[in-house]
């Protein structure tokens, strides 16, 4: 388990939980990224601007943290993310993630973080299902093909 980073994983997780908690307690919204992205559409005009602001803040803060945090805390890994998936596969994967999260009404954040902490049975079933199919897919692509 040479790549296991329990401390930075826990700190990052606590921050994500804090974000989801604040968005709920103050704004009454679920911090599910697939829902926020998928719902940024013209058919509910009042629901667009906050979604775009949230996603923009998320991307900018991630970009800044990625560049600044390893300089402040030398223990944090600084190497760039590894994108080894071929472009055509990435496009298919993106479509599947878009269709699947829309049908099931959530992703790792909406079902995983928000749903599990709300003790939702639907989210629990969704998380077990996407973990299982994610693991099966990685097994096939890494160990069978």
């Amino acid at each position, binding site marked *: 388990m040479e790549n296991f980073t329990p401390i930075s994983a826990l700190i990052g997780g606590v921050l994500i939980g804090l974000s989801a908690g604040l968005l709920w307690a103050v704004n009454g919204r679920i911090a599910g990224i697939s829902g926020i992205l998928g719902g940024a559409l013209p058919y509910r005009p009042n629901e667009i601007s906050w979604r775009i602001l949230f996603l923009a803040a998320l991307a900018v803060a991630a970009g800044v943290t990625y560049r600044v945090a390893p300089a402040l805390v030398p223990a944090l890994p600084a190497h760039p*993310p590894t994108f080894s998936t071929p472009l055509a596969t990435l496009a298919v*994967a993106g479509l599947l993630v878009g269709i*699947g999260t829309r049908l099931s009404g959530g992703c790792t954040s909406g079902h995983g973080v928000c749903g599990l902490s709300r003790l939702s049975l639907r989210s629990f079933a969704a998380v077990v299902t996407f973990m299982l199919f994610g693991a099966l897919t990685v097994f096939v692509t890494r160990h069978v093909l």
Partner: protein
Amino acid sequence: MNRRPVLFTAVTLIAGAIFGAGLAISRMIDPQKVKDFLDFAAIPSGGWDPSLAFVMGGAVVVAFFFYRFAAPRPVAAPDFHLSLQTGLDRRLLGGAAIFGVGWGLSGLCPGPAIADIAIVPGDVLVFVIALAAGSWATGFYGAFRSRQASLGNVPAE
């Protein structure tokens, strides 16, 4: 109309920023690390990376207290927005399975993909465009189906 529009917008930005920082610190922005978590076959050889479970666990414990002890209505908005669906159905489980396959193929889910636009703008854009197209097409199709159903043209699901 929101009860406290300035606070609502401030919390939108702050929550988005904290979320993005959390993704970067936990390294969930790295598709390789996500695949290393999903690779349960690597457990016997010691190559498995359980980090994702720690991210999700930390987030769930913290968020639990907010959901549990939130005021009867949100501080800055008139009401809570939440799915009213209960029970398990084909859409939920089938959708989660489709999402899982895409997640395993790419190592990407929506949050990290959005974050990666500002970290390694490149291949990830293809993923995000396809993700938005898939989500929006499914949403439009669903709206079309329920409109048809309400007009009596096709049976509702």
